[in-house]
């Protein structure tokens, strides 16, 4: 299960690197392929790096798919325009005394970088005259316009108060890594390198550039590890720094460890009963005129997907020599799965659960107790999943040697990544099962309910980079998205921090977290995992909201037409089928759990409905 790769490619790039003064085709190709953000070509006769080109080179540059910058010094507008079009440049960089009007005119056709030569008397207010520039470039003042290979005092940049991002340029070499990393100006966007990485003018030292890039990115990717786009991170009080760090190190160690993987696989097969079937539902397929499969996570031991994750995390806890396990739970499925694996492995187990959830998911409370776990009622706030999570985190702060098994792809890094990693077995199986049944590699559509997002993360995981597979996150709309009684986070949420990570959060204008509502305890959460926040924000996944009533109906329908009683959470995913264009599509619905725990809720609604008919 080396499944982490697809997630890593979703990371943001954070420092822009431009290499300027290029000419050699082989060098250009290599740089374009190695992740350099911008390639720069100089169009200035007086420069030793002026681009000499013929028809063939023109075509070569035109066909490059990356960001291409043309550098000009006091040229006529028409010349810049023609050159830009000829090479299909994305950016023009102006190094002379070009006027604000010129920049504005060119900005209609290209992104414009306005360069300034910095010296101790430079007045940064000049930059304010160029509001239509996309980027500024700060270079050293010297005799030659367009780059002198020497550095200016970067401290001078403290006086730049504008709000256009800038690139740093002028004599940057391999010894500047540290200084660059220490640059903390809020509008510092990246760097521009040239002469310090040359064998001779225009001939670049490619290996050196690559090493330099790696050096630069090394510590950056460390601080930015655990992000999906802008979401994720570890917003934790210092009290949790050591425990989280210890967990991250341990997780990194087992991620690719063969012995660990084999233990995990073995337990999933012989104890949990995996692989779970991919069941072709004739009735649903007929109803929607599509090919619909149910991924039967309800058939796992303990009745939901949650156990995939608890096996993984508790195996890890064992590796780390932990003896006390804590967990939060909403629907009680994660609590039961944690208590189960703790019983199996002989570990102490404490589960935090909101008192509202203890009432509506009684059978699971009884199961946990029977399994030997201590169930601690969470009485604060809305007395549901959010509050259970708060209590678990507080307990962890007070008992830092405990192992906290989070039940979804939420919480501080490394939890979202780790839970997704363990749940990814769902889509790993879907791949070969689907091929066996349909000879197709990929479904057209995957539908999963999202509380925190763990079953969805597992079902999407191996398809994240297959853009042809449409991904649907189904959220709980409660009594209706705008009813004030809802848990539709991606519809109602704004960017914020919840339980240690930056994500979408249902909150007031004052940044206070709103107490959500859903009939389904597992979806009754005001946040969503950072991965899903990113997938939805970036358009990779769509989100659909399903009301309590729609979910109940879909759950009862499946019970009667297929003889499968789904968990209320999973019933939300089923109800979403009515809201997606499915005709002739191959669809997988992740049936995350079974509905035994929800019988009381279902039966109450069923009796009501039948009484109405009478």
């Amino acid at each position, binding site marked *: 299960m080396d499944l982490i790769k697809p997630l890593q490619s979703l990371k943001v790039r954070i420092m822009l690197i431009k290499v300027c003064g290029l000419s050699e085709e082989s060098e250009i190709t290599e740089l374009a392929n190695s992740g350099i953000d911008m390639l720069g070509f100089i169009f200035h006769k007086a420069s030793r790096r002026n681009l000499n080109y013929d028809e063939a080179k023109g075509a070569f540059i035109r066909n490059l798919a990356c960001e291409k910058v043309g550098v000009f010094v006091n040229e006529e507008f028409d010349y810049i325009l023609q050159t830009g079009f000829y090479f299909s440049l994305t950016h023009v960089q102006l190094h002379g005394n070009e006027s604000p009007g010129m920049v504005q005119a060119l900005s209609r056709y290209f992104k414009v970088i306005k360069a300034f030569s910095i010296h101790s008397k430079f007045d940064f207010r000049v930059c304010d005259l160029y509001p239509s520039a996309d980027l500024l470039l700060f270079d050293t003042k010297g005799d030659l316009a367009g780059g002198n290979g020497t550095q200016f005092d970067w401290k001078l940049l403290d006086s730049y108060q504008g709000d256009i991002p800038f690139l740093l340029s002028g004599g940057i070499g391999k010894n500047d890594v540290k200084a660059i990393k220490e640059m*903390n*100006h*809020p509008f510092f966007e990246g760097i521009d390198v040239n002469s310090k990485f040359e064998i001779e003018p225009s001939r670049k030292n490619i290996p050196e550039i690559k090493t330099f890039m790696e050096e630069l990115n090394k510590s950056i990717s460390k*601080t*930015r590890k655990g992000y999906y786009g802008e979401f994720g*991170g*570890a*917003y*934790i*009080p*210092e*009290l949790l*720094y*050591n425990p989280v760090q210890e967990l991250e190190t341990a997780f990194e160690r087992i991620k690719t460890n063969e012995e660990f993987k084999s233990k995990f696989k073995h337990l999933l097969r012989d104890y949990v009963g995996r692989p779970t079937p991919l069941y072709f539902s004739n009735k649903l397929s007929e109803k929607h005129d599509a090919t619909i499969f149910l991924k039967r996570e309800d058939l796992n031991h303990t009745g939901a997907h949650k156990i995939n994750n608890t096996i993984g995390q508790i195996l890890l806890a064992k590796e780390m020599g932990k003896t006390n396990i804590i967990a939060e739970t909403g629907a009680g499925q994660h609590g039961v799965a944690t208590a189960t694996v703790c019983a199996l492995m002989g570990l102490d187990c404490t589960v935090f659960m909101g008192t509202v959830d203890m009432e509506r998911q009684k059978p699971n409370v009884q199961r946990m107790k029977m399994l030997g776990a201590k169930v601690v009622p969470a009485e*604060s*706030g809305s007395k549901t999943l*959010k509050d259970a999570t*708060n209590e678990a*985190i*507080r307990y962890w*702060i*007070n*008992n*830092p040697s405990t192992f906290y098994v989070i039940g979804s792809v939420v919480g501080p890094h490394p939890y979202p990544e780790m839970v997704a990693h363990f749940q990814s077995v769902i889509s790993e199986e879907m791949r070969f099962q689907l091929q066996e049944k349909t000879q197709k590699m990929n479904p057209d559509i995957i539908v999963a309910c999202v509380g925190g997002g763990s079953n969805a993360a597992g079902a999407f995981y191996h398809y994240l980079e297959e853009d042809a597979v449409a991904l649907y996150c189904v959220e709980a709309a409660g009594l209706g998205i705008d009813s004030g009684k809802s848990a539709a986070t991606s519809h109602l949420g*704004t*960017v*914020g*921090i*919840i*339980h*240690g990570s930056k994500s979408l*959060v249902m*909150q007031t*204008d*004052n*940044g*206070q*977290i709103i107490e959500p509502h859903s009939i389904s305890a597992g979806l009754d959460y005001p946040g969503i995992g950072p991965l899903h926040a990113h997938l939805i924000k970036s358009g990779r996944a769509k989100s659909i909201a399903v009301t309590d009533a729609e979910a109940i109906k879909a759950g009862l329908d499946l019970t009667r037409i297929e003889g499968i009683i789904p968990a209320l959470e999973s019933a939300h995913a089923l109800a979403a089928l009515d809201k997606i264009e499915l005709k002739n599509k191959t669809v997988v619905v992740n049936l995350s759990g079974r509905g035994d725990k929800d019988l009381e809720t279902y039966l109450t609604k069923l009796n009501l409905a039948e009484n109405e008919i009478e």
Partner: protein
Amino acid sequence: MKLNKKNNCSIFLTAGYPQLNSAPKLVEELENAGIDFIELGIPFSDPLADGPVIQETSTIALNNGMTIDVLFEQVAEIKMNSALPIVLMGYFNPIYTYGVEKFLKQCKALGVDGLIIPDLEIDIYEFEYKALFETYDIPLIFLITTATPVDRIRRVEKMSKAFIYLVSSSATTGAKASFSKGQIQAFERIKALNLKVPIMVGFGIHNNETYRTVCNLFDGAIIGTAYLKSIANKVSTKAFVADIIG
């Protein structure tokens, strides 16, 4: 803000508790009682690092209608009448939602002396916010614990402009035992680092004994839960402070 004397005593109170407009009056009482600086807590719905007492005061404060804007009005009022340094303490989400820059700008305008944001982790601060804090010249006060690795403490030392907040034990706020031998030894290890920045100790300081212990080693103590409890129990500020300082 400069802490250049010994035995500094700071009090934490939740803004908006017990009444929406209590803070200015309480601060005045605290100043008269000889407190050295104030930490005003911005209430949050989900205060993860806090025990039941501060959770409860936060809930009451929010129900009373406390918001960041209201708090700023109260800070302005306090600053008009008092020279006491004011540090604001709050979880990151309300500040993030308010807008970090807008928040810092307001702090600067009102003369706020420092900020404590327990869940703004050091790496994130350094990577995303340090420059902004420096632009507005608002010191962020970092928390360390006795378990924080030394190289991390050194980083904190370099970035600290006011003081370092040493959390006395691995616990949420409101623990109230006396310090164990192990804890005292851990304090002494921190003391031996000879940090160039003053150290204030908080979490679990609730009586004269705990106050004395930390003042003997460090630059002062921060008291929160015990004070909020005394408000609920209708103990006068003067009597409470006298009891602690001794």
